[in-house]
């Protein structure tokens, strides 16, 4: 008698299971409990309760599919971010590499084009031959001589000034005397003021950047053979420049020491 009732109840429960909420499940179970059937009832209860959660899957499945969609999107974003970051990192490394490569590349470019102050030898040698003196622009060259504090030579120019024109080669003399009882080796460098005029001041031959040895009590004349580039007259920045000062400074050199030549590549001094 009880069995058909149980079966009916279970069928009823299973039919309505799609729309069942949790409360309905509980009333169904309570109803079953109310019948008072043991053993079979408890078995049926267990069976029902286990089955019901699976029937409710469609609703939960819907929520899960929404979540998986956003997860997909997140994955996509993450992938995109990663590629962008990789590109940026590669660009950064590329910039650093370029800055290292720029040093030898710039050197090559300067040697090819003659910029950066390093005179291209071929160009200058031809120029001395063909340049025309600009006779109406007279420039006064003043001379200055210095020695390093520990250098005991008497070093001075033999003329305080000289008047030249651009494009004309000129000769000037310095005198150096070694008053000590020991041979002294000196090495000199020069400076031209104003700085912008220095690029037009070309020395054909002088006594700088090489060791000069003076025996005890010896006095020598040191010539400087130079010219001012004719383009000096065409430079608007040099329009007001009338005086150029050439300044030499002598330092004492240790035996065998070679003063590092300014410029990029080692230039051999002996022609």
């Amino acid at each position: 008698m009880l069995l058909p009732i149980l079966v009916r109840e279970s069928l009823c429960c299973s039919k309505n299971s799609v729309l069942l909420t949790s409360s309905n499940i509980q009333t169904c179970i309570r109803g079953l409990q109310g019948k008072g059937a043991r053993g079979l009832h408890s078995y049926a209860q267990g069976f029902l309760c286990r089955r019901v959660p699976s029937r409710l899957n469609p609703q939960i499945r819907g929520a899960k599919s929404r979540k998986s969609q956003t997860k997909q999107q997140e994955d996509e974003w993450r992938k995109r971010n990663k590629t962008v970051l990789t590109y940026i990192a590669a660009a950064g490394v590329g910039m650093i590499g370029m800055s290292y490569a720029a040093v030898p590349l710039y050197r090559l470019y300067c040697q090819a084009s003659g910029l950066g102050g390093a005179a291209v030898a071929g160009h200058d040698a031809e120029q001395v031959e063909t340049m025309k003196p600009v006779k109406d622009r007279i420039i006064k060259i003043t001379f200055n001589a210095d020695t390093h504090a520990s250098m005991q030579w008497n070093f001075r120019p033999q003329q305080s000034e000289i008047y030249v024109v651009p494009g004309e080669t000129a000769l000037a003399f310095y005198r150096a005397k070694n008053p000590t009882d020991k041979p002294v080796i000196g090495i000199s460098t020069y400076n031209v003021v104003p700085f912008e005029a220095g690029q037009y001041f070309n020395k054909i031959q002088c006594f700088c950047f090489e060791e000069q040895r003076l025996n005890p009590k010896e006095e020598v004349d040191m010539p400087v053979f130079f010219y001012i580039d004719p383009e000096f007259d065409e430079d608007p920045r040099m329009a007001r420049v009338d005086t150029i000062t050439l300044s030499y400074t002598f330092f004492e050199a240790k035996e065998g020491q070679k003063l590092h030549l300014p410029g990029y590549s080692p230039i051999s001094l002996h022609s």
Partner: protein
Amino acid sequence: MSTAMNFSSKSFRPRAPDKGSFPLDHFGECKAFKEKFMKCLKGNSYDNSMCRLQSKDYLECRMDNQLMAKEPLEKLGFKDLMDKPSQENKEAKP
């Protein structure tokens, strides 16, 4: 060397001389020519254009005494002095 204040304009760069360094005239072999040149300069109020002949002589002395590498004088900018003096006068008049 040069002040760091002017970044835009070219700072001074000492350049090696084109033909290198003069060997020292320890024995004063060309001292006479040098004296002539200095006297000429003093006489002409230190105008280089008037004393180019003396400077040419000095350099020739250096070349003769192994104190300078031998070079044709045109390469040293004395092309105008190699021509006749009359031509030089014509060039002086602009």
